């Protein structure tokens, strides 16, 4: 059945969801029209503040029947427009489903609703001696959003990404059917793994309304090393040596002095040991001080052997916070250094990082545009920010397109992928199409049309 007049949506939905959970038309705040990046804007016709799986299921049944587009939103911290209702329709806001439902100490699992914030999960688990390792920079994102983009973060090399910590999901299908995928089990070879299909599908295949996450025991000790190098080649060529050492750091971050300078300007603070060209920032954790000390001492020696100018040991919380706070604010600092910016979140094989950074530096020079960057070199995921500065609208669009084109082509050439952790959404869709084999895109489309024949769930995103 087609809906003739869009104003009817409210009437129909209000029969299954209480009116106070609905916001329509002119009452919808602008905030619902954009995400953190802010470059794409479109408002939905109706916002549903869902409170339960049943709410979501009931709304999807209506959407399916009347073929109304439906988009899911959490905290709106995405960077690629994935949660924006670009075709109007219904926006299902899951931020109110924010209860932590159960901590199962025997199975080491935590069951949560999708609107729980990452920082709340962290705090809740750690207070009870447990640990949820995935650590994306944006701590005020919802777990639902993390699952739908398969968010990665700083600790990926040692602990893996969000996908590795999802044991079970409750998912509402585009038809409105409720599905229970996975379970509190460690192994599973029971049929197709639809859970893993839903993870990272950016709300195009189903709506996650409950998740059971895997926890580990909280590491008692953490030490970070700040390691300055004379140039980025020697910094990055040290990374494989570290990864081969038999000791796995929790994080291996890379940044250059331009990011440090932006941060100093932005914050008015002094970065400790600021006068170096380039840095690695490493982290180690474990259950005993001796073990962690042994680990970082060995790695420190390796860094010296590979040309480190010095190695600073951040074994006290204040200093660790100082450096990691700065690292966490690089994005904001770069943002404030320019008028407008856009980002590239490529991930390349770790052996190709030097090559890719060199290419980026070259591109910046050739296109005469600033492209500061930093990233998780331990896993090959780099973040570059293309800065508009004083360019006029037309030149900026042209330059941005050129840079995107060049970087994504190079990324593909070295065997990389378009997005390491931010997702595709709307902003990166064109580049995903160019970088994957046609057969892969076509299979993705087949899956999408089989699961969502009316193309109502987050339409025109990802593929």
């Amino acid at each position, binding site marked *: 059945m087609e809906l003739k007049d869009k104003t009817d949506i409210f009437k129909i939905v209000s029969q299954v969801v209480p009116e106070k959970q609905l916001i329509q038309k002119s009452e919808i705040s602008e905030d619902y029209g954009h995400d953190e990046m802010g470059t794409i804007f479109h408002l939905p016709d109706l916002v549903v503040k869902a409170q339960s799986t049943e709410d979501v299921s009931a709304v999807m049944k209506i959407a399916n029947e009347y073929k109304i587009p439906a988009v899911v939103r959490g905290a709106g911290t995405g960077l690629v427009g994935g949660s924006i209702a670009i075709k109007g329709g219904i926006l299902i806001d899951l931020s109110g489903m924010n209860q932590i439902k159960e901590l199962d100490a025997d199975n080491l699992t935590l069951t949560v609703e999708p609107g729980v914030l990452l920082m709340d999960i962290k705090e809740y688990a750690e207070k009870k001696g447990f640990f949820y390792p995935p650590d994306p920079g944006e701590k*005020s994102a919802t777990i639902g959003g993390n699952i739908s983009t398969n968010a990665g973060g700083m600790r990926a090399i040692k602990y893996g990404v969000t996908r590795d910590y999802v044991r079970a999901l409750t998912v509402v299908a585009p038809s409105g059917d409720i599905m229970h995928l996975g379970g509190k089990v460690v192994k599973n070879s029971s049929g197709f793994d639809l859970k893993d299909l839903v993870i990272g599908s950016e709300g195009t295949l189903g709506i996650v309304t409950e998740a059971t996450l895997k926890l580990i025991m909280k590491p008692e000790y953490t030490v970070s090393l700040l390691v300055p190098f004379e140039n980025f080649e020697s910094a990055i060529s040290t990374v494989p040596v570290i990864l081969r050492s038999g000791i796995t750091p929790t994080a291996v971050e890379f940044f250059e002095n331009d990011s440090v300078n932006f941060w100093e300007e*932005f*914050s*008015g*603070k002094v970065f400790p040991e600021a006068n170096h060209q380039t840095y690695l920032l490493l982290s180690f954790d474990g259950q005993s001080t001796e073990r962690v000390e042994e680990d970082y001492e060995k790695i420190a020696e390796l860094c010296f052997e590979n040309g480190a100018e010095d190695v600073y040991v951040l074994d006290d919380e204040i200093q660790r916070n*100082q450096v990691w706070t700065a690292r966490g*604010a690089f994005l*904001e600092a770069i943002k404030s250094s320019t008028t407008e910016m856009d980002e590239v979140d490529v991930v390349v094989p770790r052996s190709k990082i030097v090559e890719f950074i060199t290419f980026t530096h070259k591109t910046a020079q050739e296109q005469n545009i600033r492209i500061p960057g930093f990233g998780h070199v331990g896993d090959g995921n780099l973040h570059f920010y293309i800065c508009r500065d004083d360019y006029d609208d037309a030149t900026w669009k042209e330059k941005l397109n050129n840079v995107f084109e060049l970087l994504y082509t190079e990324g593909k050439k070295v065997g990389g992928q378009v997005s390491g952790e931010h997702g595709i959404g709307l902003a990166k869709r064109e580049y995903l199409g160019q970088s994957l084999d046609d057969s892969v895109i076509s299979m993705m489309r087949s899956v999408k049309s089989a699961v969502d024949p009316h193309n109502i769930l987050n339409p025109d995103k990802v593929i």
Partner: protein
Amino acid sequence: MNNQTVYLCATTDDQSEVEALQKVVQESFSTASITVVAFQSEALDQTKFQASFDQNVDAITFLNVEKLSVLDPNAVAKAYNQYFQKNDAGRIIFYANRFNNGIAARVAASNLSAIVTDVEKIEATDDHLNLVKKSYSGALKRQITVTDAAPLIITVNNSNITLEKVAAKETAVTEETLSIDYQVPKTAVYKSLVDNDNLNLDNAEVVVAGGRGLKGAEEFKNLEKLAENLSAAVGASRPVVDNGWVPNTLMVGQSGKSIEPDIYFAFGISGAVQHTVGIENVKTIVAINSDEKAPIFKIADYGIVGDAKEVIEKMTEITAQK
């Protein structure tokens, strides 16, 4: 309680300094013989100061150092030392602030007296004093017991008792001009940081302060708008200053300022003791925090559990209508 003279020492005529000293007499030394020893400088108006202690104490002495161009704590301490070498240094009391604590420490070091700074409570018994002060910035308290036989210097915080003015004594006023052996440093400049011309943390009746819960420098601009509507000064917690969102001068707490506005709005401030130690004397505290378990709610008179950003927005709207 023995009959030692209690010396009250003052370096300014600030109301809080004068009141704190008067209160300590009323609370703990009401029967003792009291001498006020005030240091004469630009920071202390002799007539005004004398009036506030007249008929309440036994004696007031103004110490005057010849040719002293700037208020240098080394010079002030030397003057007090000279005075106490001639007079029995039994119980010496200063009002606790960072400047005075430095003077008190210097005098104690020269006299080899016991010294306790920032005392909150004094209990005098027959032969000793029980003092209570904050420890670990206020997370704990420490009791120090000092026998009467020991020379003792304390600096006292302003307590909350109401002052009863009893005019009962004959006050003898004297002046002493001293020459001390101290050269103030070359090009020394002393200046007051009290700014009475502009609204700021020291003089505002309303303060709106932000913490980590504001999530970024951006939100402080919105807080400034609210401050304008309320004729309030803006404050901040240490993590916010450390993140570089606002300058050092806005910091409230252990490493920053202690303030006493009538009403203090804490937006997104969790309420660690290092912060709350700076707002102890605020009359009304309003806490806004998304975490209902945040310690700030324990000391708040009013509170809103909710997102600081949202509340700032709404408050700005409401106050703009006036």
